């Protein structure tokens, strides 16, 4: 059982997974993009600018989900001091930061023609910016604090503190008056987005998740190589 966690075994698994995802990723991306950009209908009100949503919404979901994951893993990391978790959270963070930034940028590109402004200091947008800052702090701690144990502790606490921001982002559109519209897709109850738009949206979400997995595995691999260089046999 513990054999699985030996570096070389993890390595083989990562390589297999990487080549598998690599082989299907571009085909999936093409399908997803062609559904999002060509085959899906324009919106009755926004026209073609609705297509930005197919990147914006999955990017925001991934930004939120990866921070939640980092925070939860950080809790276990802080309590049980599992080395592997540190590597995992460290590998997820850049992905989350990139997708949060993509969500913010695509959002403001969409906001210009629809709302009439690039930026508004409303609760949703500001809390999303705070999320991006938490990612930056998390990554900066790992880069700047040279003593590894300290870096691990401080970054865990940063992530756990940032966890409070997640429900604020989610419910900001319900708790306060915001310029940002409330969620169209609800887990309970009916969604207010037509199925001809929902399908490409979920497809794009799946494709971008694949991309996340790809980047994560590559980053995780480098982290393990770094450990190997220190001549540690097991994580």
């Amino acid at each position, binding site marked *: 059982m513990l054999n699985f966690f030996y570096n070389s075994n993890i390595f083989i698994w990562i390589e297999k997974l990487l080549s598998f995802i690599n082989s299907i990723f571009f085909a999936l991306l093409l399908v997803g993009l062609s559904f999002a950009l060509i085959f899906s*209908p*324009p*919106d*009755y*009100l*926004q026209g073609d600018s*609705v297509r930005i*949503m197919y990147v914006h919404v999955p990017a925001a979901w991934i930004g939120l989900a990866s921070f939640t994951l980092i925070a939860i893993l950080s*809790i276990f990391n*802080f*309590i*049980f*001091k599992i080395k592997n978790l540190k590597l995992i959270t460290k590998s997820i963070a850049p992905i989350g930061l990139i997708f949060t930034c993509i969500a913010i940028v695509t959002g403001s590109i969409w906001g210009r*023609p*629809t*709302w*009439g*402004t690039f930026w*508004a*200091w*409303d*609760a949703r947008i500001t809390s999303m910016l705070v999320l991006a800052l938490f990612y930056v702090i998390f990554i900066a701690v790992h880069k700047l604090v040279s003593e590894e144990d300290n870096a691990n502790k401080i970054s865990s*606490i940063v992530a*756990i*503190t940032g*966890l*409070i921001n997640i429900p*604020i982002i989610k419910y900001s559109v319900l708790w*306060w*008056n*915001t*310029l940002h*519209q*409330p*969620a*169209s897709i609800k887990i309970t109850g009916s969604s*207010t*987005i*037509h199925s*001809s*738009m929902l399908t490409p949206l979920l497809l794009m979400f799946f494709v971008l998740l694949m991309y996340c997995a790809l980047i994560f595995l590559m980053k995780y691999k480098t982290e393990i190589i770094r450990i190997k260089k220190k001549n540690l046999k097991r994580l």
Partner: protein
Amino acid sequence: MLPKKAKKRASLLAVFFLVSIICVFLILNALNKNILYFKTPTDIRVSQDIDFNKKIRVGGMVKKNTLNIKDQEILFIITDLKNEIKVSFKGTIPNLFSEGKGVVAEGKLQDKKFFIADRILAKHDENYMPPELQNIMKDNAK
């Protein structure tokens, strides 16, 4: 079950997390009015201390059949279905601005019923659908 040290760290973390949640809650509670991106006509009506020299935002729906465009000036009424406020605006409007849709106007209050805006933002709602469906729904409504 847990090692003693891990137990200590867990309780430390729980206390830290609880305290930070309380802090954030108190901060948000204190800032509540400033977090609101816009005020509704009802908010303006009931509030006692309005600074007429300060820029504020008023939001709601553009009341149907009130949009009136005179060469340079755009006049319309913002409503939250309970109270209304008259708005005058000169300038360019975003694509989505139309009657019966959400709007946020930025500018100064002249009095509690009249607002001079220097910027108009359109608020999009959470409904997404293809144009054909919109036509079908219109036909059904007739």
